[in-house]
């Protein structure tokens, strides 16, 4: 009983959003295959970006609103690649390569700024995002065409200075990664089930100390996925029209593996120590300033890749707006998954992305059905995104204050 209660209180936010999502889905009247198509796409689009937030949390820097800078680096690279008209996977790889040095430099600068603004990291990254947006506009709205030579009738405004407000990636980077390999959803489910089964068989025979409950759960899930997938394939249901962009998901999977692996390295452990207690870290001979800069660089570089993955999936972007929301939406997603300022896991990031985008899909439709106005649904999701960030920041700070008070009382 206490276990159940603890589970409920620890995961209150995520549970609330599961309820909102399910109710919204029912009210919106979306059919399941249609919804699935949308959500699979959005998961492929945004997971990478949300995952790029984990490392700064590990290093005790809190939620990195400055992934906006990484997003800008990615976007700048995309603009260059689109200008050079290099399509497909080659273009995407080139964009990632081009964004890399820029993201590293921006990451170092952000890290150094944060070392000066200790204890105020989050508000600093937030304002830094706004600030760099000004620089971004300066470069792409005023300097391109006037100082930086660029001749391109499609990208540049008719006056010859500044980029157009929206850029279409069709015929260029659009779906370059997604279209590498697309597999019908039921097949994907069955294959996932088989892999899951395989991994756990290996685990079971290697180590005998696996918890029985967990093993049974995974086994049932795997068998269900296989059975359901095969059934859907056999009956040729609508689900077969949902085609999963496997390439993109493999990259996301790659990042998950990387993060798991990274946290076990010496550097990852140092980062965790710095995040938990800087003084202990200093005593242990860890250069915390350096570690914090490395964390920011990693996050910024990952965010630049994240934005490239995001935009190749979307296929079109608003030159001066797409990066702006990237940070906020990613952070809201992470928090909805149950993460906090001090702790974030891969599972929380993925679950959060799923729940956040479910809300994104259903709320305008639900708004129209419930109030006769889709705009109210849009206000609702903006409110939720901002509100969830405000709420979880407030709860975290409150908890810290209570802990400090408790400690003070104990020491007296």
């Amino acid at each position, binding site marked *: 009983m206490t276990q159940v209660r603890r589970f409920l209180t620890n995961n209150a936010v995520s549970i609330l959003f599961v309820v909102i999502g399910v109710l919204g889905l029912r009210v919106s009247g979306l059919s399941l295959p249609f919804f699935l198509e949308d959500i699979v796409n959005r998961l492929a689009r945004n997971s990478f970006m949300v995952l790029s937030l984990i490392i700064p949390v590990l290093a005790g820097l809190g939620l990195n609103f400055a992934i906006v800078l990484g997003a800008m680096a990615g976007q700048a690279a995309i603009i260059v690649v689109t200008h050079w008209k290099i399509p497909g996977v080659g273009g995407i790889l080139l964009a990632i390569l081009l964004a890399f040095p820029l993201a590293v430099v921006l990451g170092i600068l952000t890290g150094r*700024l944060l070392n*000066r*603004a*200790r*204890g*105020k990291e*989050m*508000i*600093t990254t*937030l*304002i*830094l995002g*706004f*600030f760099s*947006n*000004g*620089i971004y*506009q*300066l470069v792409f*709205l*005023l300097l391109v065409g*006037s100082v930086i030579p660029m001749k391109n009738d499609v990208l540049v405004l008719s*006056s010859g*200075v500044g980029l157009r407000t929206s850029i279409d990636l069709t015929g260029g980077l659009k779906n370059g990664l997604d279209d590498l390999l697309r597999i019908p959803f039921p097949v994907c489910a069955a294959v996932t089930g088989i892999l899951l089964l395989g991994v756990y068989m290996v685990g079971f025979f290697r180590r005998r100390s696996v918890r029985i409950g967990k093993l049974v759960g995974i086994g049932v899930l795997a068998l269900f996925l296989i059975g359901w997938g095969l059934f859907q394939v056999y009956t040729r249901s609508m689900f077969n029209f949902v085609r999963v962009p496997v390439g993109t998901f493999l990259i996301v999977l790659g990042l998950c593996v990387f993060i798991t692996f990274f946290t076990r390295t010496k550097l990852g452990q140092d980062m965790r120590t710095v995040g938990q207690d800087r003084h202990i870290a200093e005593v242990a001979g860890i250069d915390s300033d350096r570690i914090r800069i490395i964390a920011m660089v990693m996050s910024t570089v990952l965010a630049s890749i994240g934005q490239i993955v995001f935009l190749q999936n979307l296929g079109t972007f608003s030159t001066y707006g797409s990066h702006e929301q990237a940070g906020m939406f990613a952070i809201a997603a992470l928090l909805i998954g149950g993460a906090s300022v001090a702790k974030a896991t891969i599972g929380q990031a993925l679950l959060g992305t799923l729940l956040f985008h479910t809300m994104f899909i259903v709320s305008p439709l639900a708004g129209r059905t419930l109030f006769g*106005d889709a*705009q*109210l649904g849009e*206000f*609702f999701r*903006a*409110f939720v995104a*901002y*509100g969830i*960030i*405000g709420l979880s*920041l*407030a709860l*975290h*700070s*409150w908890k*810290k*204050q209570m802990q400090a008070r408790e400690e003070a009382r104990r020491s007296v």
Partner: protein
Amino acid sequence: MLEHLLTKIRSFGIPRIIIILFLLSLWISAAFLSIPFPALLSDTFVRLGMNTVLTLSMLPSILVGTSLFFGLPLGIICGLLGGVMSIELNLKGLTAFFAAIGFSIPLAILVGYGYGLLLNRVKGSEMTVGTYVGFAFVSLMSFGWVTLPFKNPEMAWAIGKGIRVTVSLEGRFSNVLNKLWAFELYGVKIPTGALVFLGVMCLFMGLFLRTRTGLAMQECGMNPKFAKASGINVDRMRILGTIISTILGAIGILTYAQGFGFLQLYEAPMYMGFIAAAAILIGGASLKTAKISHVIIGTFLFQGILVVALPVANTVATLGSLAEISRIIVSNGIILYALAQKGGNE
């Protein structure tokens, strides 16, 4: 000698010097582009009248120790509600303006009280929490603007329900303060009423800061432990400071709106907190200390830049959005500079 000069410059603040030089260079280029100087100065005065009270709302918050008042949208929304109510009641002129202030103050007290309670629970993260509470409140109020039962056709959409995104104040209280006792001096129009109004607000603030309560409030910001030891209820003072800031935000947006000629609803209030914060920081405030002179000097410098940047940029033709871009860079740059200063842990 040189060292002495350097320390002086440093204490004056490098960004402030940059901003003053930037303003001077804009003025000089304006002169070269033969943009009429009196008109620029007139505009600067109008903008000063519009923005000073919003900037002033940062002051109590900084002094009481809750740092920059990024919850400003809360106050702004109270002010906008007051303005909308005054139009709904079909009021006109100065009556409409002061009635709007009158309606908004009780709301601001209520909202400020609640917000103050919240800030007391999140000591050390006031700015981050405030920013997002402000954002969330703005999007929550977007529901309100659509659903609140205001009937006046002036404010309603032609089709659909809810209030317009911008409500014109023409024939209501547009420019009521600017036109009051206005006169011209060497071609410079002086919006006397607006300047007197902001003068009165600053005077009230100055007097309040010299009262017992005002002094106690400043003590809380300077040294909360000492304040507590000397019998001041720090939490109550912080709530009081927040309430005053919220009220000033409400009055501030109404003075802004009378100069601008429109009430801007929905998402417009979202980023106004950053502009006001930037203004007071440009004037010489830090995250922990501020004076009324900082409010006025800062607003003058910041708005001066914005006023001149636009015509200068337009004359150079290709740089159409320079004014907006320099606003973003200057305002956020100065906030970043303040955050990166030593001390003042959030």
